[in-house]
C-alpha cells in the first residue's frame, strides 16, 4: 500500500481524473473530498460491504420460503 502524508487542504491525484482532498482533521476524524467522474462510484466501505453481504444472502431464496412468507404477511395485514 502506498502511504502518503498530507495536511488539510492538500490533495492527491489518482490517475487522470480523480482528486482526493483532505478537508479537515479533527481528533480521530478525517474529512475527505473526492472529485471523480460520475461513472465512478464512491462509497463508505462498511456500508458497501453490508449491502454486498446482504445481497449474497438474498441471492438464494427458495420459492417455497417466499410463498410461505407471503402467506404469513397476508395473515398479518
Amino acid at each position, binding site marked *: 500500500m502506498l502511504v502518503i502524508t498530507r495536511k488539510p487542504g492538500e490533495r492527491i491525484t489518482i490517475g487522470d481524473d480523480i482528486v482526493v482532498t483532505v478537508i479537515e482533521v479533527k481528533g480521530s476524524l478525517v474529512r475527505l473530498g473526492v472529485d471523480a467522474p460520475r461513472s465512478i462510484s464512491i462509497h463508505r466501505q462498511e456500508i458497501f460491504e453490508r*449491502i454486498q453481504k*446482504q445481497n449474497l444472502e438474498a441471492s*438464494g431464496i427458495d420459492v417455497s*420460503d417466499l410463498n410461505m412468507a407471503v402467506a404469513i*404477511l397476508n395473515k398479518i395485514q
Partner: protein
Amino acid sequence: MKITTTRFGVISVKKDKIIYMPSGMLGFPEKKRFVLFGHRENSPFLWYQSVDDPSLAFVVTSPFLFVPNYDVEVDEAAKSMSWDDADENDLELYVIANIPKGEPDKITANLIGPLLINIRKRQAVQMVIASSPYSHKYSLAVRQ
C-alpha cells in the same frame, strides 16, 4: 429469447424487457442482465432474475408498501447512470428482500441498498444509502 433458470425452468422473455445493470448488483459485478416479473397473485413481491446466471435471482418489493414514508435521494444515482432526462415516471424503486432458509417469518428488506430502475431505458443501478435512519434488515413480518 429463452432463458434458463433453476427456480422457474426455461422462461421466455422479450428482448426489450431485459434490464441492463452496468455495474451489476453489489457482490455480483459480472451479472449485468436481469428480468423482473411478479411472484404471483396477491403477493407484493417480484423476482429479479439474472439472465446470465440461472441460479441468481433476488426477491424485490416496493419499499412504500412497508415503509410508506420511505425517502431516499435518487438524483445522484440517476446522475451516475447519465439518466439526465429521466423524469419521475421513468424511475421505479425497489428494495431487496431476504429470507433465511426455512424461516419465512424472518423475512426482511434491505432499505439501504435499493434498486433503482429506469423503465424507459431498461437500465438499473443498486444504490448505496450512506446516511439514513434505515436498516439493512428491516423486518417485514411484524404488525406495523
